[in-house]
């Protein structure tokens, strides 16, 4: 399967400081592949280089070294751009235009004309849930609505590849839900979706693959299932119909006990203490088992562990703390 | 009380403050103005003293600035003439200098400006040399403009009584390509009969017939009327001299002369203003309100002798 996005040692240095300019490495030799037809998450804390990566791909910023290809063509190829949709971070559009007019302008820039063009615009706005507000000037739009307009303009040209920079930012929970549904729909239609986020739960529900950036470097990546199946770190047991006093007896073994309702408790048990033993005692006290489930290491745990190790000074000449050997993948292909 | 009205009432102190502050400010200004004299009228300020400086600063807006300064010139000249204050035209020459530096092709500024400058007091500053200098400046910018040379000739003839200089100017004018034929005859007349009233009349008539400019036409008409007035005064002085020979009693009045049969009616100048008769000297002159004032002074040797 051909890759929708490929980068090879993509690097970006900026110069920071006016009086004593110093080079600052925003992205360090990023090499990755995004296979076509998948949802790919580019994750990392703020300042990790996610937006820089996406801007390099959209040629808003030029690489200091390395290269990248989109849909098999070098970055900046104008024909390729006809098949790509892009949503910038915190988008801002010409606020004196209405949503209709803005999308009409963009549609014409893509080369569409006439009544087909108007239909396209209407469909895109429908898809993101903008109704009659489309005739209002954009300066009257809330942040969430602007985000939706941004999504609409990214889908206008029926793109094979959709690049989204922080697509969930500024949205309320309903909005986030809708965007998640939209991304899955795009995937089902066979499109490739590459998005960046610092919110891990979104990645967990949507992505097949992820790449984790920290400090300008790729610190981990691969299939989500590979990364997180790793370790079970314990169990969670929910019981009902027991008194607090009875539950308190397990304080020595449970790492955590929460009361979630009247006579209903959640117990977290560590790895070394299998739930079967607790269950027997609980049932003997007259309680009922409501649920048992393993606690897997979440992406967040994985994330925190690797990112903390990687983040250090990115100015040339200062020592970088050593990255954890078995999870360091800088320079290694991820795919 | 509705919410809107309540909101409005809440703003009432703000409005009171606005009105009160403004009233206090205006009051302070009125009080101060009573104490200190007002600054010099805007007239006296040129803003910028030098034509060259103004031109540099004007970038490409010099033509419209020239118009602004021209308007100021006209207002200054007219304002001083008609006003009650002292007849001082100090700003006239600098304003004209700035106007013509900003727009060296501004014909009207040169021609009317020269007339303004040459006009003797109280109607003008009486500076024929400045007038000639202004016209020469115009010639530098437009060497082909024979009208400026003609105007120089007139100033020299009429105000400076420099008949040779005037003739030279007229001749120079007639040498310019495209100049009309009558300029050379003007030169000849001036040289031959300079100062003679008939020659002057011929020159002014020539100007009147050959200029299309309305304002300059009216100026020529005025000069011709002044010459007419001079003729009339001469005639009246003869009549008065004959009357005086009969040793009438003083004070002399026109009515006495009419009663004596020397005149049919009170004599009036070409503008219709009655002449003045000196009650004890018998001297005839223009009436005080006459717009033909001041009459040109003629050199004694050129005045035609009253016929006896």
């Amino acid at each position, binding site marked *: 399967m051909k890759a929708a996005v490929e980068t090879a040692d993509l690097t970006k240095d900026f110069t920071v400081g006016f009086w004593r300019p110093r080079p600052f490495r925003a992205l360090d030799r990023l090499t990755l592949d995004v296979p076509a037809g998948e949802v790919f998450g580019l994750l990392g804390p703020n300042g990790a280089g996610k937006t820089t990566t996406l801007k390099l791909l*959209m040629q808003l*910023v030029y690489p200091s070294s390395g290269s990248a290809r989109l849909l098999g063509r070098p970055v900046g190829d104008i024909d390729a751009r006809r098949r790509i949709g892009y949503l910038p971070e915190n*988008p801002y559009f010409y606020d004196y235009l209405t949503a209709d007019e803005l999308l009409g302008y963009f549609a014409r820039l*893509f080369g569409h004309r006439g009544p087909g063009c108007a239909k396209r615009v209407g469909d895109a706005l429908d898809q993101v849930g903008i109704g009659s507000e489309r005739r209002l000037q954009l300066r009257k739009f809330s942040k969430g609505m602007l985000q939706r307009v941004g999504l609409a303009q990214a889908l206008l040209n029926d793109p094979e590849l959709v690049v989204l920079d922080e697509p969930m930012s500024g949205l309320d929970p309903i909005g986030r839900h809708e965007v998640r549904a939209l991304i899955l729909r795009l995937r089902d239609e066979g499109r490739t979706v590459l998005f960046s986020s610092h919110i891990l739960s979104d990645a967990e529900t949507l992505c097949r693959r992820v790449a984790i950036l920290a400090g300008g470097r790729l610190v981990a990546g691969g299939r989500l299932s590979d990364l997180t199946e790793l370790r079970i770190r314990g169990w969670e047991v929910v019981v009902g119909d027991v008194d607090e006093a009875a539950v308190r007896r397990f304080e020595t073994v449970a790492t955590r006990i929460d009361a979630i309702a009247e006579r209903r408790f959640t117990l977290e048990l560590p790895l070394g203490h299998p739930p079967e033993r607790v269950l027997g005692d609980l049932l003997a006290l007259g309680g009922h088992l409501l649920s048992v489930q393993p606690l897997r290491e979440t992406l967040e745990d994985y994330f925190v562990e690797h990112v903390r190790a990687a983040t250090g000074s990115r100015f040339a000449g200062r020592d970088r703390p050593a990255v954890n050997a078995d999870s360091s993948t800088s320079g290694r292909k991820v795919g | 009380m509705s919410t809107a009205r309540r909101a409005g009432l809440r703003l009432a102190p703000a409005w009171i403050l606005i009105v009160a502050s403004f009233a206090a400010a205006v009051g302070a200004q009125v009080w101060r103005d009573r104490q200190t004299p007002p600054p010099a009228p805007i007239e006296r300020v040129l803003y910028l003293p030098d034509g060259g400086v103004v031109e540099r600063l004007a970038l*490409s*807006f010099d033509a419209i600035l020239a*118009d602004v300064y021209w308007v100021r010139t006209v207002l200054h000249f007219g304002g001083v003439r008609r006003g009650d204050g002292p007849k001082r035209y100090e700003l006239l020459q600098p304003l004209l200098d700035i106007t013509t530096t900003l727009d060296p092709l501004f014909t009207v500024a040169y021609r009317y400006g020269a007339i303004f400058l040459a006009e003797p007091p109280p109607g003008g500053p009486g500076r024929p040399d400045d007038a000639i200098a202004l016209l020469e400046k115009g010639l530098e910018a437009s060497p082909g403009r024979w009208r400026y040379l003609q105007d120089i000739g007139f100033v020299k003839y009429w105000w400076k009584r420099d008949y040779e200089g005037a003739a030279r100017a007229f001749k120079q004018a007639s040498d310019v390509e495209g100049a009309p034929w009558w300029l050379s005859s003007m030169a000849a007349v001036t040289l031959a009969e300079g100062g003679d009233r008939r020659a002057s009349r011929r020159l002014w008539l020539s100007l009147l017939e050959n200029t299309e400019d309305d304002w300059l036409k009216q100026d020529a008409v005025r000069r011709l009327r002044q010459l007419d007035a001079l003729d009339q005064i001469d005639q009246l002085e003869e009549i008065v001299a004959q009357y005086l020979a009969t040793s009438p009693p003083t004070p002399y009045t026109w009515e006495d002369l009419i009663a004596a049969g020397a005149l049919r009616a009170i004599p009036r100048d070409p503008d219709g203003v009655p002449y003045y008769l000196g009650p004890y000297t018998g001297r005839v002159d223009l009436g005080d309100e006459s717009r033909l004032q001041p009459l040109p002074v003629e050199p004694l040797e050129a005045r035609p002798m009253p016929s006896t």
Partner: protein
Amino acid sequence: MGTIGLIAVNAFRESVRDKVLYNLVFFATLLIVASYLVGQLTAGQEAKIIKDLGLAAASLFGLLIAVFIGIGLVSKEVERRSVYSVLTKPMSRTQFLLGKYAGLALTLVVNLTVMTIAIYGVLAWMEWSSPANIKAAWEAPALDPALLKAILLIAMELLLVVAVALLFSTFSSPLLAASLTLGLYIVGHFNADLRNLEAVVDAPVLAAVAKGVYYALPNLAPFDVKAQVVHAQPVTLTYVTLTSLYAVGYIGALLALASVIFGRRDFK
């Protein structure tokens, strides 16, 4: 319509929505009021003053539009980051710049056209209502077609200023770009003095440098033929053509330079 055309129309639409064209209302009012007052104050020079005022105001308003919209063309967009969603559409950065330039050029041309009609309108009224003896003293007829030469050169000068504003706008903030553009406009009008510095100054090296600067910086004074046209002095077609060619060449160089600078810029 090609990409450049689309961007141009959008830029034009932006200036219309910015209510830029309301300056025309002010302009027309100014001319009409002036034409009433002017007769009283100027001893028969009404036509000249209306022409001077009309041309000067057209030039000044056009300059303000050229500078303040010109700088916003690029730097405002970059500052507000609306440029991200546009440059990533299928177009080159050069097409973007040229489209913006064309849009502002269109705004200026429309503005000047309306002003020309207003000036000729007032002059026609003056021609119709002035008595023959006053008209005889006018150096040039009220409805003088030579005014169009002056307006054409005003247009070329403004197009040059817009190109300068666009260039500065590709790499500096709006405020700095405005100051630099206005500064260059002023310098451009004094530029002619540099040409003859050798006549005034003894140092030949300084004079050579001055001459070089004269050719390098835009020389704007020759675009001003307002005084000649109003005074019915001849302005030859050759002069107009050569001056316009200078403008076209200089604009080409400026746009190419802007394209290079903008083309390599990182949008952080």
